[in-house]
């Protein structure tokens, strides 16, 4: 336990890479039958941006092998375009010398596929798609070099205000907010991806209908987050299933800039469900998340949005495996753990059931359907702020009416 954290994180990463890489990443499809790649000669950024502007719906743009230093952000606003490289780590768009706008690549059109390339060291977000329905992110890497740092961009893969979103076989490292962030969207699949050394590995926020499965979330500050925030154009996030993921050793220090919502994520949390409704967490493998494997919590900041409910509701936790963890709670959990003997069980709920502006206690309906030996703790704090002095802890699992599990997500643009 007294190993330097970085060394621990690296050795864990190496061990996990050795045992689990094969299970997620398979080979990207070949390049037969595609148009010739863009020329790698001259100003590649201008060549690529020109191709993105003059593309016609249905076109495929092929990027050559190589690492290309790009001075300006890229954008795509033509429907139905596929942008592909020669592979993750083979075609690398390097934004270390970027000027101008924040993100590396911005997509604002529908029916776009992005595949087989790496985006590195953007000043802001890696790849953002806004109002881009039926988008596919596939076999992509988005990463920030060096140690996790608060000056890294916020999101690696960032679809927002979109319907029918597929993120698969993507790797994101080093995001100072979330590696894969899906916000204010609906009908979402995030699968078979690897997120590591981000503040949040995967975050589903203010979104409706998401399946998150087959992913490895390791060495982030928090592994997988399902949030709903107030005062946004789209809220009322609900119907998310988090299943069959490996959520491992998410113990990286929180390196988010202080003002960000995720700056409050305790290092060492596996899954956090905050203020979202109808969330099902099952068949996941949790290991060695030092604060808690599953944290269920209210949104605790003041808000003015009268339609907003800051409580988690209709949450089901079942059939997961838990190993290690809870032994060194961090951040906001530290004083609670200290009051409770220094450790936390795998599943922790703040117990909040009301907020300023609500009339009395509101239903949370939390279902913990795990083997009896899986520890659970209700902090028993009736309302925020989350004051350790108000702690009224209870290991009793609350009585509940398990909500029906949402049907599997079917995407309009993906044939299974």
């Amino acid at each position: 336990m007294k190993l330097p954290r970085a060394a621990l994180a690296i050795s864990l990463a190496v061990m996990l890479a050795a045992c689990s890489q094969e299970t997620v990443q398979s080979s990207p499809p070949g390049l037969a039958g595609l148009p010739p790649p863009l020329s790698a000669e001259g100003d590649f950024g201008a060549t690529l941006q020109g191709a993105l502007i003059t593309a016609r719906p249905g076109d495929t743009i092929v990027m050559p092998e190589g690492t290309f230093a790009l001075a300006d952000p890229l954008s795509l606003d033509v429907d139905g375009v596929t942008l592909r490289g020669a592979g993750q780590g083979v075609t690398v768009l390097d934004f270390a010398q970027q000027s101008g706008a924040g993100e590396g690549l911005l997509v604002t059109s529908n029916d776009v596929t992005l595949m087989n390339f790496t985006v590195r060291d953007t000043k802001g977000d890696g790849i953002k798609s806004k109002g881009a329905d039926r988008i596919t992110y596939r076999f992509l890497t988005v990463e920030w070099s060096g140690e996790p740092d608060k000056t890294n961009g916020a999101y690696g893969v960032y679809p927002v205000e979109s319907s029918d979103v597929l993120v698969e076989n993507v790797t994101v490292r080093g995001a100072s907010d979330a590696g894969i962030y899906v916000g204010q969207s609906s009908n979402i699949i995030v699968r078979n991806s690897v997120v590591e050394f981000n503040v949040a590995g995967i975050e589903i926020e203010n979104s409706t209908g998401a399946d998150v499965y087959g992913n490895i979330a390791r060495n982030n500050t928090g592994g997988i987050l399902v949030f709903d925030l107030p005062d946004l154009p789209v809220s009322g996030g609900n119907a998310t299933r988090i299943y069959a993921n490996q959520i491992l050793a998410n113990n990286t220090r929180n390196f988010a800039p202080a003002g960000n919502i995720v700056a409050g994520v305790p290092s060492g949390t596996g899954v956090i469900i905050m203020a979202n409704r109808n969330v099902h967490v099952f068949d996941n493998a949790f290991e060695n998340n030092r604060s808690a494997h599953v944290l269920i919590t209210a949104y605790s900041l003041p808000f003015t949005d009268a339609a907003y409910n800051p409580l988690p509701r209709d949450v089901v936790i079942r059939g997961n495996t838990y190993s290690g963890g809870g032994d060194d709670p961090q951040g906001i959990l530290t004083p609670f753990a200290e009051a409770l003997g220094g450790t936390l069980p795998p599943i922790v709920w703040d117990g909040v059931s009301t907020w300023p502006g609500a009339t009395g206690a509101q239903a949370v309906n939390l279902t913990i359907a795990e083997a009896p030996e899986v520890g659970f703790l209700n902090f028993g704090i009736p309302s925020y702020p989350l004051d350790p002095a108000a702690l009224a802890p209870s290991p009793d699992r609350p009585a509940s009416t398990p909500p029906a599990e949402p049907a599997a997500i079917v995407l309009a643009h993906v044939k299974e």
Partner: protein
Amino acid sequence: MRAAALLLAALLAGLTAACGLAKGSGPDMGVILAEAPAEKFSGYGLFSDIAGAAPAAGVVPYDLVNPLFSDHAGKHRLVFVPGGRMAAYAGNDVFAFPVGTVLVKTFAFAPDMRAPDAGAYRVETRLLIHKESGWAAYPYIWNADGTEAVYAPVGGKRTIQTISPAGAPITINYAVPNQNQCKTCHQAGDALAPIGPKARNLNHHAQLEDWVVRGVLDRLPSGAPAAPAVYDVSLPVEARARAWLDINCAHCHKPDGSASNSGLVLAATETDPVKIGIGKHPVAAGRGAGTLFQVIVPGAPDRSILAYRMASTEPGVAMPELGRSVPDPEGLALVREWIAEMEPR
């Protein structure tokens, strides 16, 4: 509707050609309405003397009450509405310009921006053309002699050495936006739209009366709105600061703009304090928030993300994120003054 507009445009194109306003002697409707942009700016026929920047007949210079800050560039705006047609007045929205309308904005610098007309040279011209299929945006970059500009879909860079209006020598890494970046600011839902030509932005020194006389605008109701002039110190600070935010930020920070997902709405018409940023927590700002917690902390500009991002020149932090590489010192001072005046909570 579209078929009718097409027919009308074709008729107009025929008419203008018949009236001797074809290529070389005035705006060329064939070029204006073509599917693809002209390679050379001169092809549109918008100037009678392109080197001297003299607009062609029917092409009307105009200006805005408050211009968007663009690295201290001088801006020269022209509007062309096809003969016989007029823009329809709208109270709060952009006027409804007919198909064939061209909005021209030229960005120019001078060796000393305290005297922006002395030795001025044009860097770029942006065209917004109302095609049959909606508005289209095209960037053009001027040659060194200022005799021609060439279509530049991927934009460009130019280093500008000048003296700022405040008298400081500055080097500007000026960026001509690419065609997609035009849409970032000009987005309105799924479409692209002009930003400036609303009543409130145009309504000063009898400009709209002039538009009506010239047949550019169909009518001007009495009591048409007028934006407070940002640098008219006789006006309240709040109104001026909100006017600055409206013209510099609200094209993205509006409910159907590029920054809609932020929930931050900076249009002058917004009245919800949280949407304006007062006490609002950032959502997806990342390091753009610095280490600050709220967009606007009343009474505390140094703790307000809004002022922090306006002051920054760093990609990923600086706002607006396109169209400037240096801060607007006067705008920043004004917004800071507004925040400082707010009652602390």
